[in-house]
């Protein structure tokens, strides 16, 4: 019998009721009395010198409150980068100023050039059209390889080149790598593109700044995955405001996928402008603006080499990657291709020697930062594609080749600095083989062939590092923020509970899943527990939700705080029951003196905490509220194996995904329904990356895929039902719940499965094709088949 409440149950999501009835409270649904509207005049060229900017005509237009230019922000700080990477020579990354409004120079299409605040949005747009801009166009730097060349046009004049850093990582010293490759029985090499993507949460970003003249306090409503981080970055680095004067609220947020982690210019602008204009200022992004102002994702060019011995054991792996940073460093940009990518290059395999080289480059494009998976999908794609290619070159079964090289003993120290605490890769692969019905593939292929179609099966594994930690280690690696999280459990007199969590839910269902844990620990009904999140004015502190960290890190903080609550409640119960607190047991919401009938219920104890008439006041403070900060000892390592079956129409090159199966090991699971949903969504995005999505610039730095007319979002008819299995469970060894995190797995694990399947299908049709870059569009498949 599946449980119907507590850990491991799948209660219906409580947040659904408001979303299903139109009662969600998204940022754009908020209107502040007297608010003005800002329209940002954005650059329509990629690279130019601003010679002059005349706002006088615009200022005289109806409804205009105030117009801001780069000069107005010259004195405030730039948007900070949250991670300082040290390059191969021990030098810090090059870090240009990232202004709120372009000053002197435009560096990407979409950069803010001026901001018009007016009574209505249309008035602001009208006035923006009256701003006169005098620009001298400069050559745009778009292609990463040419950006890296000596003498290339520089995106930032004050930097030595377009190279942000040239980073080397892993245990493979140059000569050891040389030797390993020289002595290899087989070497497989692959050049591949990890296509640039736009995160595209369905809710575009919104920011509303408000300033209270009476107490000089600010409120920023924003579509953020981590309001405390935004407050910290904006106050400390950009606007120089005291944090206690600033409240950041991120109410219901319509998806993030990474793109709402970062601190954006529009947030700082609206906060600053609210005071400068003497009224609240609201900005609601259009989708068109989102394409040129939300941070993009991925965008790696990689060459990967895999060495194998005569028995097909992996002996060495080397990758060289160019990673696009765009024009400026977004919040976590520099960590994505390094510590979230290089550290994952061991994959699920015991390759003894690994060397990773990443060159991150400035280009005249929108900043690039984390997108669902962030670095780990790029690593997985490279590893799993090159292994697949090796299997085909060697004529061995791709699953067998993987199995042969699996890490099987834990803990396992990788050559790229991680320690995998636990896992069972063979067990997970067994689950996949069943879920995907791999033994039935041959028959399905025959059916497809009878219809004139090619059918392919692609399999891959992935490993993910979630809940990036511990803070002292990541601090040594360059992180400029702690990576703990916090939770406060406030028990009310009548026994109901508010849990204030630093994690932020924007689709992940925290409001349902987090109470399951507390309910299980205390033994009370989930309906007595509510989660509060997304408001720095209510939640003490938190680092937010990204990197699949919420339950593993914030959930652990919540467990610790709840443990403190239980410990104190037991003392109160002990006092009331005239026993020693060591003898008190808590079960199903009732405190019992062990071995006796003496008991008292939860509500009586909580009431006593607040009405302490009969209370050990000399030993215990009244009240029942506890906070815990939890800094994990290690990452968690979800891992899995995915399988995709595609059909290809050889006449048109169109690829359709016929079947998709995922077997994941997420350790213990709090709410299986939500976990499945997270995997489904990730797979949908991964299929999108593999077959459809592509963010493309032309050589002048104009974005060609600037709307849904050209950026292909996966739709319902692009994907099949997915078979997901997470019964392979090796609990995390170092957090109290034994959980690992599941938010990104689907997006990490699915792209290589799709591409591997495409190659399998094409080769089955006699085509000598070893690789096609993503997105594997019909046009590309056809070109490859007829190339």
């Amino acid at each position: 019998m599946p449980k119907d409440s507590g850990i491991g149950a799948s209660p219906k999501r409580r947040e659904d009721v408001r979303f299903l009835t139109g009662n969600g409270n998204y940022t754009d649904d908020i209107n502040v009395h007297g608010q003005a509207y800002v329209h940002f005049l954005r650059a329509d060229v990629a690279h130019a010198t601003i010679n002059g900017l005349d706002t006088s005509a615009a200022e005289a237009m109806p409804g205009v409150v105030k117009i801001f230019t780069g000069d107005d922000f010259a004195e405030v700080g730039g948007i900070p980068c949250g991670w300082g990477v040290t390059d191969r020579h021990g030098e810090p990354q090059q870090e240009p100023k990232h202004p709120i409004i372009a000053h002197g120079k435009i560096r990407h299409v979409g950069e803010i050039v001026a901001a018009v605040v007016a009574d209505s949005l249309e008035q602001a747009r009208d006035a923006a059209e009256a701003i006169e801009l005098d620009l001298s166009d400069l050559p745009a730097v778009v292609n990463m390889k040419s950006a890296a060349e000596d003498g290339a046009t520089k995106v930032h004049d004050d930097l030595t080149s377009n190279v942000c850093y040239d980073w080397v990582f892993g245990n493979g010293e140059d000569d050891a790598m040389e030797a390993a490759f020289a002595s290899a029985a087989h070497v497989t090499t692959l050049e591949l593109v990890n296509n640039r993507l736009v995160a595209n949460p369905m809710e575009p970003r919104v920011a509303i700044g408000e300033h209270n003249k009476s107490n000089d306090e600010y409120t920023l409503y924003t579509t953020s995955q981590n309001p405390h981080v935004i407050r910290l970055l904006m106050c400390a680095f950009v606007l120089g405001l005291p944090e206690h004067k600033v409240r950041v609220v991120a109410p219901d947020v319509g998806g993030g996928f990474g793109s709402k982690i970062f601190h954006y210019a529009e947030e700082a602008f609206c906060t600053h402008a609210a005071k400068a204009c003497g009224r609240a200022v609201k900005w609601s992004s259009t989708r068109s603006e989102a394409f040129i102002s939300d941070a993009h994702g991925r965008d790696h060019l990689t060459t990967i080499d895999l060495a194998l011995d005569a028995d097909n054991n992996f002996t060495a792996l080397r990758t060289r990657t160019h990673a696009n940073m765009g024009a400026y460093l977004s919040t976590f940009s520099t960590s994505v291709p390094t510590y979230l990518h290089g550290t994952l290059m061991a994959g699920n395999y015991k390759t003894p020697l690994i060397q990773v080289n990443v060159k991150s480059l400035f280009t005249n494009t929108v900043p690039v930062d984390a997108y669902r998976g962030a670095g780990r999908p790029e690593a997985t794609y490279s590893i799993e594609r090159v292994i697949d290619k090796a299997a085909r070159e060697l004529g061995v079964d791709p699953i067998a080749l993987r199995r042969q090289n699996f890490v099987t003993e834990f803990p396992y120290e990788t050559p790229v600095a991680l320690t995998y605490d636990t896992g069972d890769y063979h067990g997970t692969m067994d689950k996949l083989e069943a879920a995907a019905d791999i033994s039935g593939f041959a028959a399905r292929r025959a059916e497809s062939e009878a219809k004139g179609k090619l059918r392919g099966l692609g399999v891959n594994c992935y490993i993910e590092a979630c809940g990036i930690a511990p803070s002292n280690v990541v601090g040594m690696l360059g992180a400029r923020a702690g990576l703990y999280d916090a939770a406060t459990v406030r028990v009310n007199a009548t026994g109901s509970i508010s849990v204030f969590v630093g994690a932020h839910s924007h689709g992940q269902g925290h409001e349902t899943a987090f109470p399951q844990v507390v309910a299980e620990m205390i033994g009370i009904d989930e309906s007595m527990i509510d989660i509060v999140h997304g408001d720095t004015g209510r939640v003490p502190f938190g680092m937010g939700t990204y990197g699949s960290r919420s339950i593993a890190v914030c959930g652990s903080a919540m467990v610790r705080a709840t443990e403190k609550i239980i410990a104190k409640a037991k003392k109160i119960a002990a006092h009331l029951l005239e026993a020693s607190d060591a003898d008190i047991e808590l079960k199903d919401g009732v405190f019992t003196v062990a071995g006796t009938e003496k008991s008292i219920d939860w509500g009586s104890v909580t009431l006593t905490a607040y009405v302490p008439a009969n209370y050990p006041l000399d030993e215990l403070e009244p009240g029942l509220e506890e906070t815990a900060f939890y800094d994990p000892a290690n990452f968690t390592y979800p891992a899995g194996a995915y399988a995709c079956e595609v059909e290809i129409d050889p006449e048109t090159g169109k690829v359709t995904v016929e079947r998709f199966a995922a077997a994941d090991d997420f350790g213990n699971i709090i709410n299986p329904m939500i976990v499945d949903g997270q995997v489904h969504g990730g797979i949908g995005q991964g299929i999108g990356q593999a077959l459809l999505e592509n963010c493309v610039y032309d050589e002048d730095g104009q974005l060609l895929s600037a709307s849904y007319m050209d950026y292909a979002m996966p739709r319902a008819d692009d994907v099949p039902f997915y078979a997901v299995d997470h019964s392979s469970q090796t609990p995390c060894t170092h957090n109290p719940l034994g959980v690992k995190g599941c938010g990104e797995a689907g997006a990490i694990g699915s792209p290589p499965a799709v591409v591997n399947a495409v190659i399998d299908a094409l080769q089955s049709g006699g085509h000598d094709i070893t690789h096609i870059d993503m997105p594997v569009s019909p046009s590309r498949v056809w070109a490859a088949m007829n190339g």
Partner: protein
Amino acid sequence: MSQVTMTVNGKTASGDVEGRTLLSQFLRENLNLTGTHVGCDTSQCGACVVHVNGEAVKSCTMLAAEADGADVATIEGQANADGSLNTIQQAFQDHHGLQCGFCTPGMVMSAAALLKDNPKPSEAEIRDYLEGNICRCTGYHNIVKAIMAASGQDVSAIAAE
């Protein structure tokens, strides 16, 4: 400015609008019915779908003036009279057909329009019908499943919950 009057979720609603005021704007800003969402400006995402005279339309691609005199239904009017979720809404909750909830109002309104014309749609028909409704969170699995369930079909065999 001119006045428009329409029936919205069974109640008469009027307001002053400009020629350019979109139906989505009128609903959100004049009537404070913020359940209708706006997710794009090229008429593709479907977060804004409402029913006008019983037919699904994208309220971001219709002028408020064009809806003058019309009967408009939005997500806010979908629940049963006693406030409980209607069959489609309930199926979305039961089958976890939503995550962030942003696409959800449009999905529910499109699903309602589909089931009105086609009470037992196949999986393929549902996927095809949802061409104009983009969801970034769910990978569509549970949306399709929820709509099948709402139409009374047995979904227990569909992989996973």
